[in-house]
């Protein structure tokens, strides 16, 4: 039965603001789902209920006193457990940090708090944000609310699963090779990876500082737009964050796609794609053209360079961060985590410098050729039907399991090296009842454009509203 936890983040904020619901009621509605379903899904790894109720009561009292703090006022949230809050647990999904309590608070957490939101839990994630599946040796695997033996996508596994299972209205994820878009796709929610530099990474666990991004997973594109407006913008604590002005992203979502040119890559992104996934993408393109967009199909340039260079950057940047633990306590990592990091130590520095120094020229050449023809690119977020946790378990599976594992992020990784903004929106279900995602990619700082396209699509479809079967028994 649908209830208060099924509404969108914006509806939740509006209801609190108008007095039609209290923040405490929202919180308890989320907890009803959490208590019933988290034992199966395993999206939440710690909670602070007393503090959350106190925050909810304070938010409700502020509304009564006409002291609403901002556009997220009274909305309970839970985030991937790598966003630091001073003095609070932040496990980064690892036994190596199971008791870690940072002394700083992430800028994005602070900005959402300043906008009136509060946090009640830490979400499961891949160890150190390093897998696309949701496996976790320390806290247990995260399970897909749509079909429990299947992967949630990762590395923001708990973010995708918790929003899908109505434990919260929105969760932050991080995206270094697809880790926002993949769980959004696999769990049937909307996930936005902003342009590189658009959002501060201060107080966020690093993985690959050239490719790391912070962004929201939520029910709708409009919800993501609201969150991005709150968290984007320059942060003196993160000198790499952009000074570009931050628009009010919700204003882009007007349903009008007339004049919007969509490109569909004919190379790479559909290689080995499963038929239900291709069919879902083609059906989505019909919806978008019905709103006035035009579609052209062509080969994307420079994909070999993007793949080669992007792989180098991610592997090399992760290596020194973990070198001490890889020497002193390598068995504390899941085998698939340490195994994938290990070769990174052998990559020559000259390769890394070449990969970084080519990044700007490759982006310029790519953008000139592609965005001269179209405004956005559309691909499946994941090109195959979802695999199970067992099928992608490198730690216990046979040799070759890693190929199925790596195929999951094949369509998302290129846009991290290119630094482009991308969003995943639900666009159907595969034969196993698992969601399929549509990836929409824009040029740098075109978050408004891709939100506009995703928002228009969601105006004509209901995939993002569908409840996962795991909630069927919840009153």
């Amino acid at each position: 039965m649908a209830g208060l936890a099924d509404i969108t983040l914006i509806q939740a904020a509006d209801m609190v603001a108008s007095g039609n619901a209290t923040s405490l009621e929202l919180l308890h509605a989320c907890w009803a789902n959490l208590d019933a379903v988290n034992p199966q899904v395993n999206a939440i790894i710690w909670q602070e209920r007393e503090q959350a109720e106190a925050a909810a009561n304070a938010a409700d009292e502020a509304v009564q006193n006409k002291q609403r703090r901002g556009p997220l006022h009274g909305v309970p949230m839970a985030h991937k457990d790598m966003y630091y809050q001073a003095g609070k647990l932040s496990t980064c999904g690892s036994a190596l940090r199971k008791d870690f309590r940072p002394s700083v608070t992430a800028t994005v957490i602070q900005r959402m708090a300043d906008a009136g939101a509060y946090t009640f839990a830490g979400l499961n994630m891949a160890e150190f944000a390093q897998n696309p599946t949701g496996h976790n040796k320390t806290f247990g695997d995260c399970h897909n609310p749509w079909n429990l033996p299947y992967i949630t996508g990762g590395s923001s596994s708990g973010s995708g699963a918790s929003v899908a299972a109505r434990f919260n209205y929105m969760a932050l994820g991080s995206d270094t090779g697809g880790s926002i878009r993949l769980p959004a796709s696999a769990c049937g929610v909307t996930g936005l990876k902003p342009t590189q530099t658009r959002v501060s990474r201060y107080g966020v666990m690093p993985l690959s500082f050239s490719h790391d991004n912070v962004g929201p997973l939520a029910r709708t594109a409009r919800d993501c737009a609201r969150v991005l407006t709150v968290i984007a913008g320059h942060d003196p604590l993160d000198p790499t964050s952009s000074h570009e002005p931050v628009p009010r992203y919700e204003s882009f979502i007007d349903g009008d796609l007339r004049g919007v040119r969509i490109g569909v890559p004919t190379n790479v992104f559909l290689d080995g794609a499963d038929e239900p996934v291709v069919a879902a993408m083609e059906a989505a393109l019909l919806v978008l053209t019905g709103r006035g967009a035009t579609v052209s199909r062509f080969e994307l340039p420079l994909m070999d360079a993007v793949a080669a260079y992007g792989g180098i950057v991610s592997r090399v940047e992760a290596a020194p961060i973990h070198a001490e633990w890889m020497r002193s306590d390598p068995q504390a990592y899941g085998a698939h985590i340490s195994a994938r990091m290990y070769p990174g130590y052998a990559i020559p520095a000259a390769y890394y410098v070449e990969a970084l120094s080519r990044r700007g020229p490759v982006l310029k050449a790519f953008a000139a050729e592609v965005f001269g023809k179209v405004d956005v690119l559309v691909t499946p977020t994941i090109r195959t039907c979802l695999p199970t946790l067992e099928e992608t378990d490198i730690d216990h599976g046979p040799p070759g399991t890693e190929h199925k594992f790596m195929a999951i992020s094949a369509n998302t990784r290129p846009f991290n090296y290119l630094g482009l903004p991308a969003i995943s929106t639900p666009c159907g279900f595969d034969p196993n009842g698992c969601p399929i995602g549509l990836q929409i990619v824009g040029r740098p700082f075109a978050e408004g454009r891709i939100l506009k396209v995703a928002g228009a699509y969601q105006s004509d479809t209901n995939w993002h509203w569908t409840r996962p079967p795991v909630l069927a028994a919840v009153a």
Partner: protein
Amino acid sequence: MGVFETSVEATIARWFGIKPPNKPAKRLTTELAATIKAFEALRGTLAFEDEPSSFEAALLATKEDA
């Protein structure tokens, strides 16, 4: 184990003091050969540049106009 894998493991041990943590790590070491091939394939395809290019500048140069 082949000469290539032995050489990679020796390099990592010498430069970082890190040993292969498990069998999948040994398997994935062999994939560095594909990395080298991918870089070989890119040789000669990109022009020499006199100045290092800033990625942040490229983001701004290619951004969506307001």
